[in-house]
């Protein structure tokens, strides 16, 4: 994988390029990137994984939330070079080839989304919560998702969606 820029100048050496290695959704990748490239742009444009959305560019809305080594990170304010040697998960990695992740099912079952723009980030933040706390209270869910903005739903159904997923996940492990 690499990012190609048009060679429009005689002095292409002026743009420094760093070579990074990382894993995304279980697949190992190598990329050559400008040091200032944002992780969200590496994911969206470099890897064409457009499920990670960009809403605010300032770490407020959480639409771009991905997991880096299992921790939720807003990828619009992390540089691509910072994931060198690390592991990234995006919404595209949530489901298997035939089976949805319980969070994905839960969001559909409980009408946890409307326009769908915040949904991938919301589900990734929820996944980080459920990985650590398989049986969260409503307040714990609200707190864990308080870095992710939704303008459509009023959150009530998002909370229900996460509770739905938590219950299903606990059931599948029992």
């Amino acid at each position, binding site marked *: 994988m690499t990012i190609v820029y048009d060679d429009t100048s005689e002095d292409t050496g002026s743009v420094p390029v760093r070579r990074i290695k990382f894993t995304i959704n279980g697949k190992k990748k190598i990329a050559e990137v400008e040091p200032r490239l944002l992780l969200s742009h590496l994911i969206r444009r470099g890897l064409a994984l457009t499920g990670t959305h960009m809403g605010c560019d300032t770490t407020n809305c959480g639409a771009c939330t991905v997991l880096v080594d299992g921790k939720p990170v807003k990828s619009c304010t992390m540089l691509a070079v910072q994931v060198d040697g690390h592991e990234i998960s995006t919404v595209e990695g949530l489901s298997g080839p035939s089976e949805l992740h319980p969070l994905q099912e839960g969001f559909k079952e409980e009408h946890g*989304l409307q326009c769908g723009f915040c949904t991938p980030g919301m589900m990734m933040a929820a996944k980080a919560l459920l990985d650590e706390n398989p049986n969260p209270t409503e307040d714990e*869910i*609200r*707190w864990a998702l308080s870095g*992710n903005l939704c303008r459509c739903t009023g959150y009530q159904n998002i909370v229900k969606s996460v509770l739905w997923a938590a219950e299903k996940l606990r059931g599948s492990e029992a």
Partner: protein
Amino acid sequence: MTTQAVDEIKIGGIGASRKRVEDDRFIRGKGNYTDDITLPGMLHMEILRSPLAHARIKSIDASRAWEIPGVHLVLTGDMMATRNLAWMPTLSYDTQAVLATDKVRFQGQEVACVIADDPYIAKDACEAIDVEYEPLPAIVNPTQAQAPGAPVIRDDKENQPDNVIFDWEVGDKAGTDAAFERADVVSKLQLHYPRSHPSPIECCGSIADFNRATSKLTVYMTTQAPHIIRAAVALVAELPEQMIRIISPDIGGGFGNKVPVYPGYVCSILASILLERPVKWIEDKSGNLISTGFARDIYLDGEMALRKDGKILAVRMHTESDHGAFFSDAQPSKFKIGLMHSAFATYDIPFAHLTARGTYTNKAPGGVAYRCSFRVTEAMFFQERMVQAAASDLGMDQAAFRRMNFVKDDDFPHRTPFGFLTDSGQYAKCLDVGLKAIDYDNFRARQAEARKRGKLLGLGISTMTEPLGAGNSREYDILGIKMFDSADLKVHMTGKALLRTGARGQGQGHETTWAQIVAHELGIPAEDVIVEEGDTDTAPFGMGTYASRSTPVAGAAIAMVSRKIRAKARKLAAHLLEVSEEDVEWELGRFYVRSAPDRGVTIQECAMAAYSNMPDGMEPGLENTAYYDPPNLTWPFAVYIVTVEVDPETGVWDVLNMVAVDDCGVRINPMIVEGQIMGGLTEAYAMANMQFITFDAEGNCVGSNYMDYLLPTAWETPGFELHSEVVTPCPHHPIGAKGIGECAAVGGPAAFVNAVIDALDGLGVRNIDMPLLPDRVWEAVTYQRDVSGAPPVRGDE
């Protein structure tokens, strides 16, 4: 006779809480939003914006930007002017600068654009453009705008000697004056509804793709109204309409923000035509918040004439609205201040008079209908705040005062104080459901008891009667295009169907709900109907989705086109059953012979016959289109009741309970309707609690990012209890539905404010302007006075 009709709920018809079909792509990250689209050879555009609110442009030097490798084009106002594109018409018959030529008139105004290989390069190049400004005094509110000697913001316009855009009035002045003469009590209220931004999480953007070989222009665009955009491009750019294709892909929220035509769209189109390559423009959040459609920003001043027994005799209102630098209200009515005069539609009031003045200021163009049917939010807010103040002045119970003055169930159709014709509702019944749910009587006892312990509890009631679903075409149009909508239904030979409408959903679940209307009308299972919207080359002409008009207008068109299909299917059924058409009866999904009900054919069998076995002389196929011009608006009603506790030490208030009773007529998909209500309630809470955009005395926008422009998160958003017991079908809508998307955002804010004011009862506080920030509430409690939220006036400090 035992029916063989299909079970409507099982096939996902009306009343089924069918899970959403659009979710399947969104939960997988497979949505297709504008920024997700990549075209071969695509370039990227960034906009340079003005740092000043009001300044003359002395010079623009873009030479350093042109030299940056990867830059293909730098557009400035002068270049736009050579193509007559420096200015464009607005939806309110004004003009708006595309790229500034003479002056900048608000902070964030578009000054230049760079088109480059990469957005990073384009942004670098924007920084390399040198603009020399000569600052001018900024005007940030209507008072300043009308002060003697105020600088004229729109000196580009002939016949514009000052900053006043319009003076407008409606109602019966003489009757109102006379009623005030007779009044026992006159109650007064003055307030400011602050400027707010709809702020969908997805910003605006477009990808213009002009193909020189075919002369076809395709534009992917975040627009709620693709056909209006096509018409605007055809009329403004004078391109042939058949060569323009507007595609509105998945939209990451709209709320009114994505109705207007923005300069970025125009620039990306011109750039693509000049460069003959696709040009993508994706706005960043600051650009979105400081330059695109604001809402509200209006001063409301009014008084109510009352008889001492509580009867409302008349209402007088005056509004001063701040429209920013360009009058670009995206509203289709003939009324200058939108549907402001829907105010007091809930109550039986004989006389009313409204005067409205609009002014230019050095702020971004305002007046979009943010989850609101064109100023209805302000109208209903004023109505319910005024009613609370009046009841309080009379010493009457809030609920009893409302009930006494409500329009009664058998008074419909009812002429509202300003002349609208409402057609249906059960207002008192909704109020009763709400009061019971909030346990009204016991709450008043708890409130009194808590007061003794120094705790401030409050209860706020708000009701709303919203005019939704523009138009009828007699009174509503955009640039002369009448406000109808459309549906096109193609039933394939296997009985599966493709439905297209002129609306454009942004999260409302059209792909799910529209199929349910077809299922209801034809008995075709909803899962057999695919719904498409947003592509002007394939969708029938329609006016788009805003003002809660999709179900009232496009939804009606879907029912009507389904009925056209059924009428033809009936002929096919008669042919298949070998009886005359008059002998054929319909039950859901099936025609049968009246005298022999077991002899029947399904709608699917009729569909097959339309392609394989039609009677002699019948046109083959089973397709049709319906255009629907509603006879009236739809008039949903709602009661919202909130209880709060105010902390007098900090001014922080918490919601204890919120009850919402919405009567929106027939609910097609109850799950989706409840989702709309909860979303609206959250925006109501946001406006009452934290969400506003203000400006300093120099016209700097304070609130240009989500650090400063506060939106509620899952943490602070309260829970809501929804009630759907009251259903008053719309008498003129083919399936009895009314609009719902905005009701809670329209009626909700007053409930929260009324609750906080109620908690401060006895402290002499009549009004605190929204948002009720802790410092404002603390000031009101501590100094026992009203707190205004009006923006600063230069020289005040």
